[in-house]
């Protein structure tokens, strides 16, 4: 009756062999193709580096002014502008300017990447139920798998550095925008779509003229969530060599520096709040037609 008390598991040797085979296969895969894949991501690297340089080399008053200007265009809210201005002054005063700029750069690049990849996937999902049933479980895995687990193959393949960090951030941050693009387009009123069809609109005219504009507020909620998740991933990504506010946090954890950890942690929070408020404002402004 032993099988009742002890789970009939695979024998040790078999298990060891199994793990070894998987590891070896992947190692030889990354040896053979690692460089090719790395080269494939080179343009991304130079894009990210260029962004970082732009942020770091621009004199800080100009950077602040540019950020405030963009915030104003997007939100048209004095309170948000004032808050942003104060936050950036404090960040700079406490010596976190450069780290913040690095973080901003990687957030921006990863968000752009997520938008460019995520929105078309979301559209494809909305268009066909088959694609949806295929993609949904993948998104579930991406959102639930502990991020450390997929850091392993990424690092094995691409080593430590900015690109693997960026990829890790994107894997973590892309699901919301895909889901909400899909949802937004599916929620577009069927009657309205039928009306467009009855006037002889073709697929693209329906997509760009009706579906996407009506789904935009929902899509923007997805962008907002993607940015939030990217920010949350910054600390973990710093473990594999991403510069920015995450690195000091990591240092603070291993050395028990309370002040350092708090300061950089709060800087991330501040960035998150600014991003959130600004993007929410944009989302609201897109629904102006709904108010009387």
């Amino acid at each position, binding site marked *: 009756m032993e099988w009742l008390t002890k789970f009939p598991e695979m024998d040790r040797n078999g298990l060891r062999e199994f793990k070894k085979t998987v590891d070896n296969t992947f190692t030889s895969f990354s040896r053979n193709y690692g460089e090719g894949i790395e080269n494939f991501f080179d343009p991304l690297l130079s894009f990210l580096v260029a962004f970082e340089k732009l942020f770091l080399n621009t004199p800080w008053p100009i950077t602040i002014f540019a950020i405030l200007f963009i915030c104003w265009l997007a939100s048209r809210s004095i309170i948000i502008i004032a808050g942003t201005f104060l936050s950036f002054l404090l960040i700079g005063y406490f010596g976190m300017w450069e780290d913040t700029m690095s973080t901003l750069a990687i957030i921006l690049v990863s968000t752009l990447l997520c938008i460019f990849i995520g929105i078309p996937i979301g559209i494809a999902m909305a268009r066909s139920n088959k694609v949806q049933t295929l993609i949904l479980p993948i998104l579930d895995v991406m959102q639930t798998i502990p991020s450390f687990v997929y850091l392993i193959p990424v690092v094995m393949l691409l080593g430590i550095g900015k690109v693997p960090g960026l990829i890790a951030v994107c894997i973590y941050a892309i699901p919301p925008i895909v889901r909400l693009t899909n949802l937004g387009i599916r929620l577009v*009123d069927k*009657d*309205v779509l*039928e*009306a*467009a*069809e*009855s*006037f*002889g*609109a*073709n697929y693209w*005219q329906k997509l760009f*003229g*009706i579906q996407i*504009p*009506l789904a935009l507020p929902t899509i923007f909620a997805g962008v907002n969530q993607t940015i939030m998740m990217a920010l949350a991933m910054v600390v973990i990504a710093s473990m594999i060599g991403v510069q920015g506010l995450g690195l000091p946090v990591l240092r603070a954890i291993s050395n028990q520096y309370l002040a350092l950890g708090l300061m950089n942690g709060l800087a991330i929070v501040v960035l998150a709040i600014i991003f959130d408020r600004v993007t929410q404002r944009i989302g609201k402004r897109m629904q102006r*037609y*709904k108010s*009387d």
Partner: protein
Amino acid sequence: MNNFIKIKNLYKIFGNNTTEALNLVKTGISKEELLDKTNCVLGLNNINLNIPKGKIHVIMGLSGSGKSTLIRHLNRLIEPSFGEITIDGVNVLELNNKELLEYRQKNMSMVFQKFALFPHKTILENISYGLMVQNISEEIYQEKSQFWLKRVGLEGYDNYYPNQLSGGMQQRVGLARALATDAEILLMDEAFSALDPLIRAEMQDVLIDLQLELKKTIVFITHDLDEALKIGERISILRDGFVVQDDNPQKIILNPSDDYVSDFIKDINRSRVIKAKSIMNKSVSITKDNVPIIDSEMVLEEVLQEITKTKNYFVLVKDKKDKIIGKITLNELLTGIQRPRKEIKKYA
């Protein structure tokens, strides 16, 4: 009467395995049996209709009778399971994708029950939509849309958004949007059903006025008999996806083809709907002296007023060219107003 839109043996079955279901339907199986046997829903059952050019043709029926399904076959928003639709000599079902889009753009436009305006576009952009998808130059469609905006009485509302307008105004926009493409055929799917009674009557008048001038071919769906009688020049009554009667309004009231139709018409005010020409006695030689002469289009309520003024209780009826064409006695008038007792053949 010319046959502008011809629908022949049209069937629509919703569900999987429609070929098997279609064969069953053709053997005369009922809607319920079909659902039991094949899990398919019978939408349209052997529709044969001829719709003349330049008239308002009303398709009537209760909910679930297939009227919205039928109208969507004309512009192929729904594909039929079997049958033939020819419009002005063009077999609509044989159009390929590109031809179909062009056909929808140029030849027919639609007005919807729930307005279905584009909420993110302004009123003017809404009206322009049908022209915009045709890639017509902005100058032209701006001008046309402005024209139709004025024509439906919404001048100055160009830059409002649909939800800033009342229901009646929104449907005026819907109507203008459909008219702006100059399409020959106008499909109206319960266009006024969502409006309150006063606004509905107002919109019916707007439509009748426009039609006097435009002479479009209008296929109008409604479940409201009063509306059908007011605007319809011909009425088809649909039941369970089958046309039970297709006739002019007067004949439908005077000679309902079965129980279903007579049930439908039992509550209407006959004296306000039936016209003198429908009940007059044609085979009469007439002496004209001191007898009032009435117009053949006059409804019985008015005829009654005329008849009570006379001594002998009868009036003469003239047509549009002032020619005497018949007479009506008080007896005939009362028979016309009286609702016929149940003695009509049972619907199978």
